[in-house]
């Protein structure tokens, strides 16, 4: 049973690590399917992690923290939207600006407000706590294999983890089963068709930006006041980019991206598990090797194993009415 315990705790950790990726990847799908490249996922996660940590500390409520995180993230998303939709700017540059701004602001404000070297004061009771699902303990002790699986992998996560799975299902439903989704996908493919059908391309894209902001807000909040208990500088540590890799890996589809996020989460939990472990032949591997794996896998798999990932045709192209 020792081995099962190890595997299940690894899987449980994978899910916790995959959660912010899932939120951010869904955010990326909404943005890119509407035709806006968003490398600013990282920045939006970071600023919302900061905002929610501050708000949770000040108000004593994780929910108000989440709300603050979402609001700030939506603001940043709209900033990116204004630059790329209304001003038709370069979307990569604008996304980069979002990242720099978030990275700088969080440190400056953190210093100014709390003076703890960029950290926010830790919250203990004001964070999202693990939920033990009914019967988890009993099943874990009395039913072999399935019981511990339920106890360690399914149960024992905080509410945002479950919400992340809901967001994947919701993203799928919205994109493929609703009018908004149909229009959003059409906008990323052929904005001319959308415009000539009498729909405002800009309005569709702005709404996509808002959805992206909300989802990034959840991702950031999860990092600072669910997975951890405070904000630390640069705590997103490239997760926004990994989420973007998951979007591409998953071919801009919620199901595919979910798979990619879970895989990347698993690799990350392996990373922590295998640090300072002596492996046969190679000895102790530097942790950077593991950090690089998601990117390497994305490149290698996209290069030949899962076929070509075809991006929405007009992603990254500002929409200008033709003459």
């Amino acid at each position, binding site marked *: 049973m020792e081995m099962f315990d190890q595997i299940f705790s690894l899987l449980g950790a994978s899910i916790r690590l995959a959660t912010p990726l899932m939120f951010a990847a869904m955010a990326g799908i909404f943005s890119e399917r509407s035709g806006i490249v968003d490398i600013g996922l990282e920045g939006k996660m970071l600023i919302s992690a900061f905002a929610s940590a501050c708000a949770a500390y000040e108000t004593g409520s994780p929910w108000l923290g989440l709300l603050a995180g979402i609001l700030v993230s939506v603001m940043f998303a709209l900033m990116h939207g204004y630059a790329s939709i209304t001003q038709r700017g370069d979307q990569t540059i604008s996304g980069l600006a979002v990242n720099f701004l978030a990275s700088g602001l969080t440190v400056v404000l953190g210093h100014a407000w709390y003076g703890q070297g960029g950290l926010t004061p830790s919250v203990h009771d004001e964070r999202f706590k693990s939920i033990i699902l009914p019967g988890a303990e009993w099943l874990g002790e009395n039913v072999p294999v399935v019981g511990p699986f339920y106890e360690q992998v399914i149960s024992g996560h905080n509410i945002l983890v479950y919400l992340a799975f809901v967001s994947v299902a919701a993203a799928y439903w919205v994109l493929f*089963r*609703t*009018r*908004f989704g*149909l*229009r959003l*996908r*059409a906008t990323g*493919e*052929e904005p*001319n*068709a*959308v*415009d*000539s*059908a*009498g*729909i405002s391309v800009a309005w569709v894209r702005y709404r996509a930006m808002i959805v992206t902001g909300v989802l990034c807000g959840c991702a950031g909040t999860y990092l600072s006041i669910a997975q951890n208990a405070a904000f630390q500088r640069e705590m997103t540590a490239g997760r926004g980019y990994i989420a973007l890799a998951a979007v591409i890996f998953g071919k801009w589809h919620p199901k595919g991206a979910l798979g990619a996020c879970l895989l990347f989460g698993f690799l990350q939990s392996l990373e922590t598990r295998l640090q300072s472990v002596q492996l046969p032949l190679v000895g102790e591997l530097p942790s950077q090797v593991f950090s690089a794996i998601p990117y390497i896998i994305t490149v290698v798999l996209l290069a030949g194993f899962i076929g070509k990932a075809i991006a929405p*045709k007009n992603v990254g192209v500002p929409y200008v*009415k033709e*003459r």
Partner: protein
Amino acid sequence: MTAPAIELKAINKRFGPVWANRDIDLKVMPGTVHGIVGENGAGKSTLMSILYGFYTADTGEILVNGQNLDIRNSQQAIQAGIGMVHQHFMLVEPFTVLENVMLGMEGQAVLANARGKARKALQDIASRYGLEVDPDAIVGELPVGLQQRVEILKALYRGAKILILDEPTSVLTPQETGQLFEILESLRSQGVTVLLITHKLKEIMAITNHVSIMRAGTMVAHRETAHTSPEELAELMVGRKVLLRVDKQPAQPGEQRMEIKNLDYSDDRGVRRLKDINFNLRSGEILGVAGVSGNGQSELLKMLSGALAPNQGVMVLDTRAGHSELSAGSWRDAAEIRDLGIAHVPENRLRQALVKAFSAAENAILGYHDKPEYGETFLEPEKVVNATEVMMEAYDVRPRLPGLKTANFSGGNQQKLVLAREMLKEPDILLIGQPTRGVDIGAIEFIHRNMIAARDKGAAVLLVSVELDEILSLSDRIIVMNDGAITGEVMASETNEAELGLLMTSTAGEVPTAGNGPTGGAKAPQSEQQEEAVA
């Protein structure tokens, strides 16, 4: 008397200093097909964009069915019963036909029921007007003719009673054009009003009831189609008499200049773009390459001019540079091929032939810039400018300003500059793609005359064009391409549009069923025919 379906009164639209539409009046009667002709830049598209709400007129009135309307966006135009089929389709390619038709008219926020309703409505419309398309087909996988049908369905689904078609036949084969006209007939008989924008006079004569002619932003005349002629329309469009037919003597083919054997090419994605191409080209003849755009003609031109190298095949050349044989392993680049006496006027002048931001003089030597006549070690600006002036004079490039930025010349004058650069060198072999694309009628006449003149001086000319009229009037011999293969070879004097159209859709080796000219799908008999023709 019934009110006109559309009445435009004194429409004006300016873009900065350019007066795109000036005091335009137009009346279109319901249940008719009304043609609007004019050259590129005459203001047809602007006028239609105003009617469809893409632009707003600076001044003027729009009346639809007698009611004064203020159309500010496409949504309002759609509500007024106006539908538009754009030249470049407004279709979402990965979507199904049904999804494309629904887009913007979904009804409910959740699609579950909307799909069913749309499917039923679509089938009703399809059967009423005879426009059958599989609603679940992916649009990107449909042939162009069917995609256009989806565009028409989209408009009808939105309740359009007035349909604007912008250059609808530019992407169609003659057969597809015939089908489109049948659809338009059926629409007209059901009371739909059709506005047909085109520059093809033949189509105006074939289908319209009335025709309005535009020139340089103004409406110059309205005619009843039955009481006009192509010659009159051309004169009204250009503002002077135009020779529609190309005057030429029969070809006097000389020795063989180029022979292509078993040319095969697959692109980066592994798609086979050229399939076992064989033909020859003699001095003193124009060989036309006909086909619907995108069937390998572009790749063929790039290959022969050295921009691409084939996977297989041989090119045998007999030019001033002597006898040479290039095979797949020893292909040459564009500069080396140019040195063998081959000149190339590419299909897309702004992408392949000119640098827009350069001056005319710089473009006039592009590709020949390292020749000693423009300076030994360094370029000598005086020599370059002098040479450019000679070219501009010979090919009537206006304005005659070698220092002017190329982007500031009109399409026709840009094209004439390219032609001057390539043709004044008197190449042994001239490869020329879409010589008159986006060029006004006056310049077309000039360009055609010069191509014939080059032929008569002994050049071997390979002409690639998607305009069948151009192929038929200029070529001496015609090969037809479909799906990367040559599907037939005919003598220009013994064929017609219908036969070429059939060849354009048949597969290699298959003999078309109609036409009684020497069609010959197989390759061996063809070369025999050529021998006879030459002898």
